[in-house]
C-alpha cells in the first residue's frame, strides 16, 4: 500500500499502463503544455498535473498535445481506438463535452452496435468535473446524466484514491469506451492505494462506504464524501446509514442498492447534477420499481436545483448538496408519518 493523492493515483496508473502497453496513448489540450512556447514542452504538464512527465517519458507520438478542438480530440480518440490503440483523451473540463458531443454520442458510443459487433473501441475519455471552485456555469458541471444515458458508454466516478487507481486501470484495459469522471475537488484527497500493478476494480460493483441499518444513502463522486460526513454526524445521534458509493453509473450495481433498501426501507439519493432526468431520478425510479414493498418512507433526493451552477460563493454553496442537506433528508425519511 502507498499513500497517494487522488490526482497521483490517476497519474501513476496511466503512467504504469503506458509503460506496460505501448498501445496506450494520451491526448488532449495541454496534456504536455508549453508546446510552441519559450518555456517548451512540459512547461505545464497538464493543467491538472495528471500527465506531468509523460511527454519526456513517452514522446510526442504517444503523448499528443492537441489544439483547443474538443470535437477533434474526441473523434481522434475514436479513430485511434478503432485502429487498434488504447487512447486516453482528456477533455479539460467535463463542461466542454458539449463541443465534442457528436463524436462521443453518435460515434464512439455507437461504433460497435452500428457495425454489428465488428469493431472494438477501447477509448477512455477523462473528464474532470464538478463544482466547488466558484468556476461558474461552464466550468463546474456534473455531466453524469448525459453520459449515463448513452448506450455503449461505460461511466466511472471514482471517489477515493484507491478507487481512482483501480477503476482507471480497469478503464484502460477495458475493451469498451469509458467516460472517466474525475471530480476536481477530489484531486487533493489522500488515501491508501493498492500498489499491485494489476490492481483493477471491476465495473458494476458498488462500495459500501459506511454501514448502518436505518437509512440507505446512495451517492457518487464527491457526493460520497458529503454523504460520509452526514452519516458520521448522524451516527452521533444513533442513526445508522448505509452509504453506497456506486462507483460506476453504467454499468450500475442495482443489487447493492436494492439489498440495502430492503433492510433500511428508507432511501436518500445524492446527486451533483440538476434534478430532472438525472442519476437521482433514475435511482429513485429503480428503488420505487424494485424495492417498493420495502419502502417505509418516500425516497428523498438531495440535488442542486434546476438551475445552472452559479458563481458567487454564497450561491454555489446554496446550489450544491452538503452534509447538512443530506442529514436533513435522512431525518425527513425517519420522521415520515
Amino acid at each position, binding site marked *: 500500500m502507498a499513500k497517494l493523492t487522488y490526482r497521483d493515483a490517476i497519474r501513476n496508473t496511466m503512467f504504469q499502463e503506458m509503460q506496460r502497453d505501448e498501445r496506450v496513448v494520451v491526448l488532449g489540450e495541454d496534456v504536455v503544455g508549453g508546446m510552441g512556447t519559450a518555456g517548451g514542452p512540459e512547461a505545464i504538464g497538464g493543467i491538472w498535473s495528471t500527465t506531468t512527465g509523460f511527454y519526456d517519458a513517452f514522446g510526442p507520438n504517444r503523448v499528443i498535445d492537441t489544439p483547443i478542438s474538443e470535437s477533434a480530440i474526441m473523434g481522434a480518440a475514436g479513430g485511434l*481506438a*478503432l485502429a487498434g490503440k488504447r487512447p486516453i483523451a482528456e477533455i479539460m473540463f467535463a463542461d466542454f463535452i458539449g463541443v465534442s458531443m457528436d463524436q462521443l454520442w453518435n460515434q464512439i458510443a455507437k461504433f460497435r*452496435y452500428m457495425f454489428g*459487433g*465488428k469493431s472494438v473501441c477501447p477509448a477512455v475519455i477523462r473528464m474532470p468535473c464538478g463544482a466547488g471552485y466558484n468556476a461558474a456555469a461552464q466550468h463546474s458541471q456534473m455531466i453524469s446524466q448525459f453520459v449515463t444515458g448513452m448506450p455503449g458508454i461505460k461511466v466511472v466516478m471514482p471517489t477515493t484514491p484507491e478507487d481512482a487507481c483501480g477503476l482507471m486501470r480497469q478503464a484502460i484495459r477495458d475493451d469498451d469506451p469509458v467516460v472517466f469522471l474525475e471530480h476536481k475537488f477530489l484531486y487533493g484527497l489522500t488515501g491508501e492505494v493498492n500498489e499491485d500493478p494489476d490492481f483493477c476494480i471491476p465495473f458494476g460493483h458498488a462500495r459500501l462506504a459506511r454501514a448502518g441499518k436505518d437509512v440507505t444513502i446512495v451517492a457518487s463522486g464527491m457526493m460520497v464524501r458529503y454523504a460520509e460526513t452526514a452519516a458520521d454526524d448522524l451516527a452521533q445521534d444513533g442513526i445508522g446509514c448505509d452509504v453506497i458509493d456506486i462507483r460506476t453509473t453504467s454499468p450500475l450495481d442495482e443489487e447493492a442498492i436494492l439489498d440495502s433498501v430492503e433492510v433500511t426501507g428508507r432511501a436518500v439519493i445524492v446527486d451533483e447534477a440538476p434534478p430532472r432526468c438525472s442519476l437521482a431520478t433514475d435511482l429513485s425510479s429503480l428503488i420505487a420499481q424494485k424495492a417498493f414493498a420495502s419502502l417505509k418512507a418516500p425516497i428523498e433526493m438531495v440535488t442542486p436545483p434546476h438551475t445552472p451552477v452559479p458563481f458567487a460563493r454564497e450561491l454555489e454553496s446554496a446550489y450544491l448538496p452538503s452534509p447538512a442537506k443530506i442529514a436533513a433528508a435522512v431525518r425527513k425519511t425517519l420522521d415520515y408519518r
Partner: protein
Amino acid sequence: MQLNREALTRAYRQMKLIREFEERLHEEIQTGEIAGFTHLYCGQEAVAVGVCEHLTERDKIVSTHRGHGHCLAKGCDVDGMMKEIWGSQDGLCNGKGGSMHIADIDKGMLGANGIVGAGAPIAVGAALSNKIDGPDEDGKLAIALAFSGDGACNQGTTFEAMNLAVVTKAPCIFVFENNHYSEHTGVDYAVGTVQDIASRAEAFGMKVWRADGTDFFAVHDTFREVLEYVRTPGNGPAAVEFDTERFFGHFEGDPQRYRGEGELDRLRAERDCLKIFRASVTGAALLDDADLDKVDADALQAIEDAVTAARAGARPQPENVLDNVYISY
C-alpha cells in the same frame, strides 16, 4: 495512363459495380422493400475507385452518408453490403447499421457515417495510429483518409480535424468530393470560398491538389501524387478536391426541385465518369468495347446475385436488439 489491361479492367469493374449497385437500389427503394434512408453515389464512382485502387488494407478510410461507393471500392463484400441494406442478420453489420453505417474494420473501412462532417476527426485518429506504428520496410507510412462532401467542408469538425492533422503531422488525406450540392443547397451559396474547397485546406497549412472527379485517370494520377506525399514520414496531411456530379437526389425520394432544366440529362450525357472512361480507353485502344461489355454484364449479374442473396438472408430476431452494445457489461 500507366495502367495495364488488368488494372484498367479492374478499375472499370469496380466503378461499374458501384453504378449497378446504386441503380438497382434506386429501383428497389421505390417498391418499399428497403427500409430507411438511402443516399446514392451514382456519378461519383471515379473518385472512390480512383482513390481506393491505390490503397492497401493497412490504409484506413472513413466515409459519409453517401458511402456505398467508398465501401465497395475499399473491398467490402457486395453480398454483405446488400444484405445489410436489406436489414438482414447476415449483413455486414448484422442489420444494425443499414445504408448509412456500413463498416468493415478488417478491410480498413472504418464506417460510413450518418453525421455530415463527423468522419474527418476519426480519420485523423486513425492516421495518428499509423504515425505511431511508423513506416514500413520501404519507409512508407500507412495513411488514413476521410471522404467528405462539399457539405461536410462547412462543418467545424472538418476544420478542427484539418488543423489537428497539420499540427500533429498525421498521415491523413482529406478527400473532398464537390458534387455541387450539400443536400438541397448549391455550393455557390453554401461554400463561402466560392466553389473552392481545396483553398480552405491550403489555408490550414497543408498541400492540396485539385482534379476533375469525372475523369478516372485524372483522379488516379492525382491521387498517386497525394498518396506518395502523405506516405512520406514527416510530411503530414494533404487534401484533394475532386469536381464531381451526383446523378440522384440527396436521398432517395428527393424530388430534386433545385435542379436546372435538363441538368440531369446533361450530366448523364456529358459528365458520366463511366462513359468518359469507356471513351478514353477505347479511343486509346487499351480496352475494346467487347471487353467492357463483358464487365458490364458481369457487374449486372453480381448485383442480381446480391439482391437474390439479400432477399434470402436471415432476418434478425427481436432478441438481437440487445447484441453488441458492449463487449462486456
